[in-house]
């Protein structure tokens, strides 16, 4: 068994309690700030929405790859239209 005194001594030397308190404080502060930001976000966005309305769902400008695919499709369609063998 571990000697109780030795164990306590190790906790003190390892700064166990201050580290634990500091750790919990930091974690709670960080999450509180995040929670606060989340809580006020809708209000800020409502205010922003007056200035800058939420973008209407528009078709995204196609990415490079989609375009290439599009070009490929167009090319394929073109081949088909010309009775090509490709």
């Amino acid at each position, binding site marked *: 068994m571990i000697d109780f005194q030795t164990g306590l001594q190790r*906790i003190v030397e390892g700064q166990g309690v201050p580290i634990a308190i500091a750790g*919990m404080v930091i974690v709670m502060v960080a999450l509180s700030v995040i929670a606060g930001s989340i809580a006020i976000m809708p209000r800020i966005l409502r205010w922003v929405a007056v200035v800058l309305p939420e973008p209407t769902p528009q078709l*995204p400008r196609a990415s490079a790859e989609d375009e290439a695919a599009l070009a490929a499709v167009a090319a394929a369609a073109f081949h088909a239209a010309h009775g090509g063998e490709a």
Partner: protein
Amino acid sequence: MDILVEFLGTTGFANISWGNLLMIAIGLAFITLAITKHYEPLLLLPIGFGAIVGNIPPTAGMALSVYDQGSVLSYLYYGVTSGIYPPLIFLGIGAMTDFSAMLSSPRLVLLGGAAQLGIFLTLIGALYLGFTPAESGAIGIIGGADGPTAIFLSAKLAPHLLGAIAIAAYSYMALVPVIQPPIMKLLTTREERLIRMPPPRVVSKRERIIFPIVAFIIAAMIAPGALPLVGMLLFGNLLRESGVTDRLAETARHAFIDMVTIILGFTVGASTQAQTFLTPQSLKIFGLGALSFAIATAGGVLFAKLMNLFTRDKINPLLGAAGVSAVPDSARVVQMVGHAEDPHNHLLMHAMAPNVAGVIGSAIAAGVLWSLMVE
């Protein structure tokens, strides 16, 4: 036939120990649990098979194990010891996770913080049992109930304990449905368990896009050590929510995370060689790990009760148990326990809020411990 005799000396039969056999049995148990009980199968099964692989006895002169320089497994294991795999897994988790529940109930985020108590009290316990401060930090993180976070921090603070810490973390995550319910019932009254939560509010697309950016800046400014984990988690979430990077999010949450999961699970399993794994320290780590899950659960539940002293809209304190993360198992446990008390009380969606907050909370805790322990 000298050659045959010489070869016999290189076979596993010549070198196997009782410890290897025990570890192989544990590996088989993990695989069985994964298949028959569906306990975290994506990790328990690779870890279980890896444990069998890692306990085929080594042969002198052949580089085979994760610890032998130049072996195939050592290259694959390097992503574990260097801490590369955990952030990549977080990238995929971020690309999978819908933070809407959390965005609609910000006060529940605090429960995901309170459950980190398990980490810090376990750290004190580990110091008491004679571990160094750095080792104690790594052991404490088991209470974060997050495998990648546990692996990341122990790779930084106590690489020699990585196997035991990772196995403990995943084992207890798999056992969440067994560990949590008694503690939850012990610490709550029936009235508290019957509390119903108001339906969550609607969360706009804009909020979901802005959240990962804002949350990252806050978390990383306060705890820079959490940067790799929180950064990748929320980067993955931005890929998911932006609406313009769907193909990247798709790859992050499928092929990418799967590849890393396969290799991480397999090599972590293979690192549990009996010779390095079966030590009194590992036993202590498993004991501390169980303790940490219990404390974390209690921390979340009790903090919810504490909050109820000061607010009018009462929180069902069962939700606190979801703060340990172990996504989504502990949220399911909350649903189950609440449901047992009142079949019309659906807590799952609300439990997702402290659940995902707990992931961020333990990543921040890991960052704090890293910065305090590293010289």
